[in-house]
């Protein structure tokens, strides 16, 4: 769509004016864009957070390597530690003495832990290393390698539980992705549909313009400007709503419900990502939707 500056000014003026002239048609399409993008935005916010929470759950997966109790504690510890450090993909290594082990063990049982008091005299637990893999999904693999290290008597990678966990998290991720993509497409469809109908109602005008000698570009430009503005304003509204809503929700969950363990993503980088996505979709569809719809009527 090549164009000179003077004409561009005219088209921007006309496109903007047309927004006001169409009055409630503009309101209808802007609000359709806004509400559709609001759904997309809210869902994205939700999906980003779910992904975050799921990741932190996955991150809890680790390999426990129990050392041979029949060997000298220090020899075993030093050898295994050295071997572990040689392995690829290890993020963190923590040594847990059998005393600490018992404490954790009792803590896990809560009130019932007292029942284990009798064990203190005769701590049968081994020393252990807790190893965290760089990528949680590699934990199982890492566990197999650790198993072969000398003095390591037994490992525990969570086994079936971990497998189930990963199955669930990958399902959650897949469902989320399907929802996001599905919503994205429906948003695109709904918005371009609305814009199409709006322009449809102006078919007559487009025909007249053509009959008076307007080129396709000349007709297209104001619609292009109009579509861009509709897309842009239609994206700004949900961004503002999400910005305010999310900040409020965060306060509410943490302060009112005291759900500190529900670790929401911080507002700042999140809202930026969401804004970019929404404005991207809004502009893209505003522009594309209006151009596509106008094209339909330019063949006269």
């Amino acid at each position: 769509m090549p164009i000179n500056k003077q004409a561009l000014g005219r088209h921007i003026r006309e496109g903007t004016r047309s927004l006001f002239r169409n009055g409630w048609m503009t309101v209808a399409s802007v609000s359709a864009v806004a509400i559709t993008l609001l759904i997309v935005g809210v869902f994205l916010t939700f999906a980003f957070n779910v992904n975050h929470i799921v990741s932190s759950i996955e991150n809890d997966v680790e390999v426990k390597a129990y050392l041979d109790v029949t060997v000298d504690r220090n020899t075993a510890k030093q050898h295994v530690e050295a071997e572990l450090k040689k392995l690829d993909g290890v993020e963190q290594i923590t040594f847990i003495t059998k005393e600490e082990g018992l404490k954790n063990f009792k803590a896990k049982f809560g009130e019932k832990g007292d029942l284990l008091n009798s064990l203190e005299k005769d701590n049968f637990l081994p020393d252990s290393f807790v190893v965290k893999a760089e990528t949680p999904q590699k934990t199982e693999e890492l566990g197999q390698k650790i198993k072969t290290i000398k003095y390591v008597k037994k490992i525990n990678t969570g086994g079936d539980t971990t497998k189930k966990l990963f199955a669930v998290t990958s399902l959650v991720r897949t469902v989320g992705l399907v929802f996001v993509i599905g919503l994205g497409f429906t948003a695109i469809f709904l918005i371009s549909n609305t814009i199409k109908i709006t322009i449809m109602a102006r078919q007559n005008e487009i025909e007249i313009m053509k009959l008076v000698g307007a080129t396709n570009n000349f007709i297209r430009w104001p619609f292009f400007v109009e579509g861009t503005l509709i897309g842009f304003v239609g994206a700004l509204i949900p961004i503002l709503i999400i910005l305010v809503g999310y900040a409020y929700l965060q306060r509410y969950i943490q302060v009112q419900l005291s759900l500190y363990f529900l670790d929401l993503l911080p507002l700042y980088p999140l809202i930026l990502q969401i804004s970019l996505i929404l404005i991207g979709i809004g502009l893209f569809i505003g522009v594309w939707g209006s151009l596509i719809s106008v094209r339909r009527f330019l063949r006269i």
Partner: protein
Amino acid sequence: MQNVGKTYANGTVALHAINVEIGAGEFVYVVGPSGAGKSTFIKLMYREEKASLGEIFINGFHVHQLQEKDIPFLRRGIGVVFQDFKLLPRLTVFENVAFALEVIETDPQEIKSKVMEVLELVGLANKARNLPSQLSGGEQQRVAVARALVNRPSLVIADEPTGNLDPDTSDDIMNLFAEINQNGTTVVMATHNKEIVNSMKNRVIAFEGGHIVRDELKGEYGYAY
């Protein structure tokens, strides 16, 4: 200007193979009963309808084989007064007329003076800010005339430009057409107005049932078309 032209729309034959040549600077009346094919003849000239057979040449354009993208340039050289006015409903009178100039990227200052001048000529300068829906039928028709004339095209085609006008206003408009014709513009006008045709003698092409039944240089409206 034309050679063999003919059209044929969704089944009904509106024009049978006709042959007409209109020279530059001519003033031609197109007459004939309702449904004779006058508007169809006119629509072929500015390519609202495409000829289904034959060849049409206007202002150096091969109208019948014009590509989509070249059509606007044909139309810019022709000022058309449509039978149903075809005003843009959301634009004011001024903007409607100005549109024909904006399309050819005229300077805004120039647009303003030219539009007001032509609105003055058709007697609507005081309605410049009205929307078409706020005008009487005759006023709308005069806006359509103003738009056709504003960019001084070399060919003006008018489809019953006086159908909604009283005799006095009609005469004013006819004088306008006569004047621009005097200045070298070709005028083709479909009309039912017997008085006008008979008083301002010009070439008359009479249609009936899609055929040309008469073509006289200083013709009358006539009875047997």
